[in-house]
């Protein structure tokens, strides 16, 4: 019996202690007619060896592709020590640190994480993490709503240059409450939030403005001007940023004259593998005046009975297990293991190493852009400063080009077609420090040959119905 240690003798002794005749009697309080009658439609058990064979084959199916997709999940080199240490059973199989004395390892690590993340954002405090970047943004919006009691109707300005999936998640999560979400368009030439449009907005009824950096297109927003606009209009500014980029770019706490009020985003670039989209973790930092509105776990440093330094979960009076229906959020986990990996990652690289990863990623993306823009018919869409992603327009249908690239083990980027139809046949491409000049050359050569192939469209028509599956 997998994972069950009982011997036949144990079972007999235990049943005798309970004074039960057999196992079946243990379930005598469940009405008989409710019991499962037919055997569950579940396959027979596998041995670890059989499972290994199955899973290796499946992992192999999705492997060996060169990846130029970013769009919110980024491939970076993860030092071996990160997951070697994070996978220690003492981290991986520990429970939530409610019993502080038996959880000092996790608690001290979370305190160190909070320090690193708050400093990376140049803000006062950080919580111990949220589920992912998108839910962190939703919780940041809810924080702003709680902090701003003056408005009855809450209006949130959510630019279209924010990751489209994040916008969908925000709508799912806060759509259940009396909050209005207004899209803010981006300037079609620069790919940035249009300040002119913002100036038309009725700021009196607005609770918060979300400011991405870099935005979904990889473009750098004019964060100083946006933050200043929010401040002068008494609107809370919420930064949603790539944390790795903040080793190179101006951090939210230093935007404009006052700094952003809240910063959040996806922690994945800091030592977490792509892994089909999760588990990742969301980070959430703020100025100190918002700390009581911060949801989720927060670790504080204190002392024990003998005056020795120790760590505990603090401000628990905000949380669901104490406040129940009045809690700041229903969240009762963080993403502890991923934060463990990230804290180790940031410690290994330090401020200079992290900055170098950001710089190399930027430089590789610049090189990629240079080479791509030499291909006939390929157009670089927004002429603005970038971090490590670019939008390019193709002379042929993106879906078909991506499919042809995939057949040659190349993942060319993220198709913007369904999210931003107004942009036409556009592709979001990314290069991080993991890409070599050789990789970039290979990509450009393949794309050139696919775009110049004359029978592409014929092939598309023939396989039209089938190809649609992948749009």
């Amino acid at each position, binding site marked *: 019996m997998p994972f069950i240690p009982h011997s036949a003798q144990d079972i007999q002794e235990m049943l005798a202690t309970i004074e039960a005749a057999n196992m079946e009697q243990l379930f005598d309080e*469940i009405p008989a007619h409710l019991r499962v009658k037919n055997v569950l439609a579940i396959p*027979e058990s596998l041995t670890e060896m059989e499972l290994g064979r199955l899973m290796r084959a499946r992992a192999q199916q999705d492997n060996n592709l060169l990846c130029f997709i970013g769009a919110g999940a980024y491939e970076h080199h993860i*030092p071996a020590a990160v997951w070697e240490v994070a996978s*220690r059973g003492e981290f991986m199989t520990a429970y*939530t640190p409610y019993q502080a004395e038996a959880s000092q390892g996790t608690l001290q690590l979370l305190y160190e994480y909070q320090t690193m993340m708050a400093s990376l954002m140049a803000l006062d405090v950080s919580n111990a993490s949220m589920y992912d970047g998108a839910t962190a943004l939703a919780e940041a919006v809810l924080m702003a709503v709680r902090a701003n009691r003056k408005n009855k109707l809450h209006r949130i300005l959510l630019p279209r240059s924010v990751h489209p999936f994040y916008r969908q998640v925000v709508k799912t999560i806060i759509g259940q409450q009396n909050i209005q979400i207004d899209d803010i368009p981006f300037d079609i030439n620069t790919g940035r939030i249009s300040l002119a449009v913002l100036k038309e907005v009725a700021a009196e009824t607005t609770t918060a403005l979300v400011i991405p950096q870099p935005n979904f297109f990889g473009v750098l927003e004019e964060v100083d001007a946006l933050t200043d606009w929010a401040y002068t209009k008494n609107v809370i500014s919420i930064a949603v940023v790539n944390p790795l980029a903040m080793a190179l770019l101006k951090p939210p706490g230093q935007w404009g004259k006052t700094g952003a009020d809240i910063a959040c985003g996806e922690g994945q670039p800091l030592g977490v593998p792509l892994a089909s989209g999760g588990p990742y973790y969301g980070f959430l930092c703020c100025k100190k005046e918002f700390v009581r509105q911060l949801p989720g776990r927060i670790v504080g440093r204190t002392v024990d009975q003998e005056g020795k330094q120790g760590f505990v979960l603090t401000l628990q009076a905000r949380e669901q297990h104490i406040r129940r229906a009045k809690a700041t959020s229903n969240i009762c986990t963080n993403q502890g293991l991923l934060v463990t990996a990230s804290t180790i990652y940031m410690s290994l690289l330090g401020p200079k190493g992290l900055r170098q990863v950001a710089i190399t990623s930027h430089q590789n993306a610049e090189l990629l852009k240079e080479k791509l823009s030499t291909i006939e018919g390929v157009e670089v869409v927004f002429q603005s400063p970038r971090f490590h992603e670019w939008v390019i327009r193709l002379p042929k249908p993106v879906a078909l080009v991506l499919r042809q690239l995939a057949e040659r083990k190349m993942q060319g980027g993220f198709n913007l077609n369904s999210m931003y139809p107004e942009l036409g046949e556009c592709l979001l491409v990314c290069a991080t420090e993991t890409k070599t000049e050789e990789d970039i050359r290979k990509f450009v050569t393949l794309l050139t040959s696919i775009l110049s192939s004359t029978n592409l469209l014929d092939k598309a028509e023939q396989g039209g119905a089938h190809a649609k599956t992948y749009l």
Partner: protein
Amino acid sequence: MPKLIFELSRHGRCARAQVPRHIPRAINIPKHFLRQEEPFLPEVAELQVVRHFTRLSRNNFSIDTQFYPLGSCSMKYNPRGVHHLAMLEGFLNHHPLSLDINSQGYMACAYELQEILKAVTGMSGVSLTPMAGAQGEFAGVAMIRAYHFARHDLERKEILVPDAAHGTNPATAAQCGFIVREIPTDTEGNVDIESLRAAVGPQTAGMMLTNPSTLGVFEQKIQDIAAIVHQAGGLLYYDGANLNAILGKVRPGDMGFDVMHINLHKTFATPHGGGGPGGGPVAVSDRLVPFLPTPIVVQRSGLYAWHSEKECPQTIGRLSAFMGNAGIILRAYMYARLLGKEGMERVAEFATLNANYLLAKLKAAGFTPAYVNRRASHEFIITLKTEAKEWHVTALDVAKRLLDYDIHAPTMYFPLLVPECLLIEPTETESKEMLDIFVEALIQILHEAKTQPDLVRTAPHTLSVRRLDEVKAARELDVVYKQIIDPL
């Protein structure tokens, strides 16, 4: 205690081998976008990092090192083989936005897990995207809301929860914009049927329930409850926190539930990771299938594909940037395959055997169960009300003293309606010997409470720190190194 990593820092130090090579190429970013000073990150070498965090890990209790009789949390063994296989390169390097043709390996696992979860819950549809139990609850209650809205039944503003419910239940209902109404528990630990009857009406959107309940007993009148809620036009939500107790024995779908979440980190043995990641898939009956959160894996002419808003126009929407905690989904899938159908049934059997054995032993040793006449499910409650009165030793003290015996404390002071309680759940993966050691430890502590109560009151004595000052932590907020925030 190890020093803080910042105290090991020396200017200019870092793990060089991990830093990418410098490329002599320009940075094309205007200066006003750039960071002017370095962030406050530690500057340490690789060995220091490895040693620091390895030493920190040793200040933790964990399943791999200790017994966790932690009620409601199902702290069972997390198979190493499962973790090992989830860390295969092909899985780790797979981008969530890869084309479907490049994702068939992962999607096959996700699809098959959806099918397995349907089979064990007796439900018609599953979405794997919620990233933890609480997010699953959110999805479930949001679906209840969407269902009533779709029927233009707009007056249903109340969600009922038993007074013994997990804190997430009322918090979730409130987050979904509902008014929460509590239903009392009767003397045998069941939902008070008459109070329920009086509470339901045209304002009832639904009821959230755990079965076995948080009191560790099976709700025998579950079908009456379902009938009352359904007749009033409400839907019934199953909080899957205690699914481990009934896996393969009875299914929520057969009990009359319409929607539920499953805590993968409990029933399906995925690691808790020091507080996450979790996994909280939702399963629903026919009438809620159109509202499931997206994306969902479907199978079409031999290929797996994602269904999202386009194919599911009534969905409550997306809950995560991508498709939830994929790595946790993968681990739960593998665990289910290792167990197979017989293994799945044995989970409930042995979880229940272990709990009832512990209960019998503790009863014999003089401890007081909260519900004397009831069979334990996979967990049970003892109350230390008498001990607290007689020796001024509380449930908290006993819990802290257990740590000195190298055993993690049970869940304390939950459910809220039982005074001085410990909620104990051994899980199926613990051996009889371990359970006997636990009973002995509790007997010893009871003896200490009588003979040297101070020893218990000031526990723990053997860990890296003594009892910690939580009041100071909240008053003099120090949550970031070198920066103490004024109390607000």
